[in-house]
C-alpha cells in the first residue's frame, strides 16, 4: 500500500489582475471578447463591400489612396480586377467566418448557454479561452494575408483550385497571400472544434437538475445542433486545407490536373482533380451556412415567444425541425456543384434532398407565425428584428428552392440571383438574429444596461427598408444573366441596361452602411450610459434571467399564465403558481 505522502503543491504566484482579465476563463468575458471581434470584423467586411460596390459603378475611377494601400493592384489609383477579386475574397471570408459564425455561436452562446442550462459554467473554461485566442490569431493572419506584399488572395472564399493551388503564378496575391489565407482558415477550424467540444460536453453533462433535454430553451437546442454541425464539418475543411497546402508547398497534385497552362507556362502537376476540392469544401460549406442561421432561429423563437407573451407553438416540432435541418444540411452539398460536371443522377439526389429542407424550414416558419398569432405584442426592438428575420428568411429561402433545381440552376449559377439569395439569408436574416440577440441580452452582456429603444427602432426600420432595397434588386440582375464576381460590366453590351440597377444597389448600400452608425452610436453610448435594467427586464421565463439556481420544474416558455400576479412563470420557480 502506498504510504508516501502527497508532496506540497508547487506554489505558483497568481497572475496579475490585468492578465487574468485579458486571458479570462469567465464565459461572459469571453463572450464580450468574441462580440467585439465580430464587431471589428463586420466593420472591415462592410468597408470592403462598399469599395466593391463603388468599383462596380465607377470602374475607371482614380482614387489616390488606392495606390498607397495597394501599390501592385491599384496602379495609378485605379482598382484592377485583381484587387476587386481580393476585396471580394476577404469580404466573403470575414463575413462568413468572423461575423456569422462567431457572433451567433461563440459570442451569444458563450454569454448565455451555461446560464440557460442552469450550469455554473462551461465544461472546459480554459479550452474556451484558448479557442478565442486562436480565433484572434486566425483573424490577425487573415488581415496579414490581405496586406501581404502583392495583396490578398483572389480566389474567393471558396478558394477553388487550380487558381488557389498553383501559387503566385496564377495572380498577384496568390503566393504568400493565399498561403496565409489557408493558414488562417486552418486555425479557425481548430478554434471552432474547441468551441464545439465545449458546447456539446456542457449541454450533455452539465445541465441543472430537472433540465431534461425537452425542457431546454430552443436557443440551447439550436446551439447543440450547430455544435454538432461544426464538429462534423470543420474537420473536413481542415483536411482539405492540409491537402491544398501540400499542393502549394509540397509539390503534390491532389487538386491540380495535368496539362494545366497558366499563360504560356506548363504547370508541373498531374493527376489531381479540382472537383475533389469542391466536394470537400462544400461538405463543410453547406453546413457552415446552417451554422450561421440556426442559432438565429433559436433566438427568434425565444424572442417571439417572450414578446407575444405566448409559449412557442409546438416546441417539440421546433426541436425536430432544427435537428432535421441540421441533418439534411450535411447531405446536400452537391447543390453548389450542379454546373461543375457532376453526375446528373447525383444532382437529382442532391436536388431532392435540398428541396426537402424546405419542409422543416416551413415548419419553423409557420410555428413562428403561430407563436405570434393572437399574442399580446410588445414591439420592442428585439421583437422587431425577430419579425424581420421571419420576413427575410422567407424571401431569401424561397430563392433557394429555385436554385436547388439543377435545370434552373444551370441558368442562375454564378449570377446575381445567387448573390441575392445568400445576402438575404445570411446578410440580412442571420444579421437580424444577431441584432435581436444583442438587444435582448444586452443587460447580460454589459453590466445590466439596456440599449436605447428609440434608436433601436429607428435602426431597425431604416435597416429593413434599405437592406431589401439593396439586395432584392439583385434577383432581377440575376434574371438578366448578370454574372457574379465580375469587376467590370462596361465591356459587355448585354449588361449595359443593368447599370442603372447597379447604381441603385450601390447607393442603397451606402445608405444601409450609414444607417448602421445608429446602432454603433446606440451600442457604445449604452455600454456606459444605458438605462439600468431590472433583474428580468423582459419578464422572461428562461434561466439566464433567474438568480435562484434552483431545480428546473417546467419547460422554457410558460407564458400566458392566468390568475396570478404575473403572466409568466420561470423554469425554476418552485411555486406552481397560476396555471392556464
Amino acid at each position, binding site marked *: 500500500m*502506498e504510504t508516501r505522502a502527497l*508532496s506540497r503543491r508547487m506554489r505558483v504566484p497568481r497572475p496579475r489582475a490585468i492578465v487574468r482579465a485579458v486571458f479570462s476563463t469567465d464565459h461572459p468575458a469571453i463572450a464580450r471578447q468574441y462580440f467585439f471581434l465580430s464587431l471589428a470584423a463586420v466593420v472591415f467586411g462592410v468597408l470592403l463591400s462598399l469599395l466593391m460596390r463603388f468599383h462596380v459603378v465607377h470602374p475607371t475611377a482614380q482614387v489616390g489612396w488606392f495606390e498607397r494601400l495597394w501599390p501592385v493592384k491599384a496602379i495609378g489609383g485605379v482598382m484592377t480586377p485583381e484587387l476587386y477579386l481580393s476585396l471580394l475574397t476577404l469580404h466573403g471570408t470575414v463575413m462568413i467566418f468572423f461575423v456569422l459564425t462567431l457572433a451567433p455561436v461563440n459570442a451569444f452562446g458563450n454569454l448565455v448557454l451555461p446560464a440557460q442550462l442552469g450550469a455554473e459554467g462551461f465544461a472546459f473554461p480554459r479550452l474556451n479561452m484558448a479557442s478565442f485566442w486562436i480565433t484572434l490569431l486566425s483573424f490577425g493572419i487573415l488581415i496579414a494575408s490581405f496586406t501581404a506584399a502583392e495583396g490578398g488572395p483572389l480566389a474567393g472564399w471558396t478558394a477553388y483550385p487550380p487558381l488557389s493551388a498553383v501559387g503566385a503564378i496564377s495572380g498577384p496575391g496568390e503566393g504568400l497571400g493565399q498561403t496565409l489565407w489557408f493558414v488562417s482558415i486552418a486555425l479557425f477550424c481548430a478554434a471552432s472544434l474547441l468551441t464545439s467540444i465545449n458546447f456539446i460536453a456542457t449541454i450533455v453533462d452539465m445541465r441543472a437538475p*430537472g433540465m431534461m433535454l425537452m*425542457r431546454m430553451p430552443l436557443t440551447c437546442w439550436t446551439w447543440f445542433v450547430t455544435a454538432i454541425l461544426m464538429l462534423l464539418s470543420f474537420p473536413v475543411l481542415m483536411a482539405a486545407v492540409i491537402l491544398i497546402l501540400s499542393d502549394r508547398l509540397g509539390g503534390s497534385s491532389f487538386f491540380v490536373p495535368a496539362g494545366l497552362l497558366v499563360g504560356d507556362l506548363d504547370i508541373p502537376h498531374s*493527376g489531381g482533380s479540382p472537383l*475533389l476540392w469542391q466536394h470537400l469544401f462544400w461538405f463543410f460549406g453547406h453546413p457552415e451556412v446552417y451554422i450561421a442561421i440556426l442559432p438565429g432561429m433559436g433566438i427568434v423563437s425565444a424572442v417571439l415567444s417572450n414578446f407575444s407573451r*405566448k409559449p412557442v407553438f409546438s416546441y417539440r416540432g421546433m426541436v425536430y425541425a432544427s435537428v432535421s435541418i441540421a441533418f439534411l444540411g450535411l447531405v446536400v452539398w452537391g447543390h453548389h456543384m450542379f454546373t461543375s460536371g457532376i453526375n446528373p443522377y447525383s444532382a437529382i439526389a442532391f436536388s431532392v434532398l435540398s428541396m426537402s429542407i424546405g419542409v422543416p424550414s416551413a415548419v419553423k416558419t409557420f410555428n413562428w407565425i403561430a407563436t405570434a398569432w393572437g399574442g399580446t405584442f410588445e414591439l420592442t426592438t428585439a421583437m422587431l428584428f425577430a419579425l424581420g428575420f421571419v420576413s427575410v428568411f422567407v424571401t431569401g429561402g424561397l430563392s433557394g428552392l429555385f436554385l436547388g433545381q439543377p435545370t434552373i440552376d444551370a441558368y442562375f449559377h454564378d449570377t446575381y440571383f445567387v448573390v441575392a439569395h445568400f445576402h438575404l439569408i445570411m446578410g440580412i436574416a442571420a444579421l437580424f438574429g444577431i441584432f435581436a440577440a444583442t438587444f435582448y441580452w444586452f443587460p447580460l452582456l454589459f453590466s445590466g444596461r439596456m440599449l436605447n429603444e428609440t434608436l433601436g427602432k429607428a435602426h431597425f426600420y431604416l435597416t429593413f427598408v434599405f437592406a431589401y432595397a439593396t439586395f432584392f434588386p439583385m434577383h432581377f440582375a440575376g434574371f438578366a444573366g448578370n454574372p457574379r464576381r465580375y469587376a467590370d460590366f462596361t465591356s459587355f453590351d448585354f449588361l449595359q441596361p443593368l447599370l442603372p440597377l447597379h447604381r441603385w444597389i450601390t447607393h442603397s448600400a451606402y445608405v444601409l452602411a450609414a444607417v448602421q452608425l445608429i446602432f454603433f452610436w446606440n451600442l457604445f453610448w449604452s455600454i456606459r450610459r444605458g438605462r439600468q435594467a431590472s433583474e428580468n427586464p423582459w419578464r422572461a421565463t428562461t434561466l439566464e434571467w433567474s438568480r435562484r439556481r434552483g431545480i428546473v420544474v417546467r419547460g422554457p416558455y410558460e407564458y400566458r399564465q392566468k390568475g396570478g400576479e404575473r403572466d409568466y412563470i420561470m423554469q425554476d420557480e418552485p411555486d406552481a403558481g397560476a396555471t*392556464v
Partner: protein
Amino acid sequence: MAGALTQSNIGGPPPDIPNFPAGGGGGEDRDRPYRGGSRQASITGIIVLMCASTMTFISFVSAMVVRRGLNTDWRHFQLPHILWWNTGILIVSSIVIDCARRVLVRNRRRLFNWLWSFGAVLGLAFLAGQILAWTQLEARGLYVGKGPASAFFYVLTWSHAVHVIGALLPVLYIEFRALRWELGPGRRTLVVVSAIFWHFLDVIWLGIMGLFVFWA
C-alpha cells in the same frame, strides 16, 4: 399553448434529486475559482474530439479513394520495415498505458509511475520511428511530390503524428505530476481521458497501415 399537456409534463416528473447545494455564482470566484466540468464531461469531451479527428481522417481516405480512381498514375510502394516495429511499439504502449490507468484506480501509484513512464517512452519511440520511416522513404526518392500514393502516405502519417504529439503533451504533463505524487484514484480524469485518446490513435494507425498494406 393551452390545455393540460404543457411543456412541464412532456418529459415526465423530475428525477429524484440529491441534496443539491445552492449558490455558487457563474464565472470566477476569488475563493473558489470555477474549474469546469466533471469527469463525465471530460469523457464526453474526448469522445467528441475523437469524432472530429475521425472526420478528418475519413476526409483524407475519401480523397484517397477518389484520387486513386481518377488516374493511372497511382504507384504502389513498399512500406519501410520500421513501420511494422512502430506499429508494435504503439500497440504495446496502448496496453501499458491502459494497465497504468487501471492500477491508478487501485491507488498503486508507484507501479502507475513505472508503467506510465514506460508508456511515454514508447510513445516518444514511436515518433522517432516515424521520423526514421520518412527519412528512409525520402532516401528512396519517395517524397510528397513524387506521386499520389506517397503524397497520401505523408499526409496521413503526418496528420497522425501531429495527433500523437498532441496526445503526448498531456502524457508528459501527467508524468510530471505523477512523479510529484500528485495523482491518485480521485485525481485521474486526465489519465483516463489521455488513455482513451491514445487508444483511439492506435486504432487510427492500424487503419492507416491496413489501408496501405491491403489497398493502396
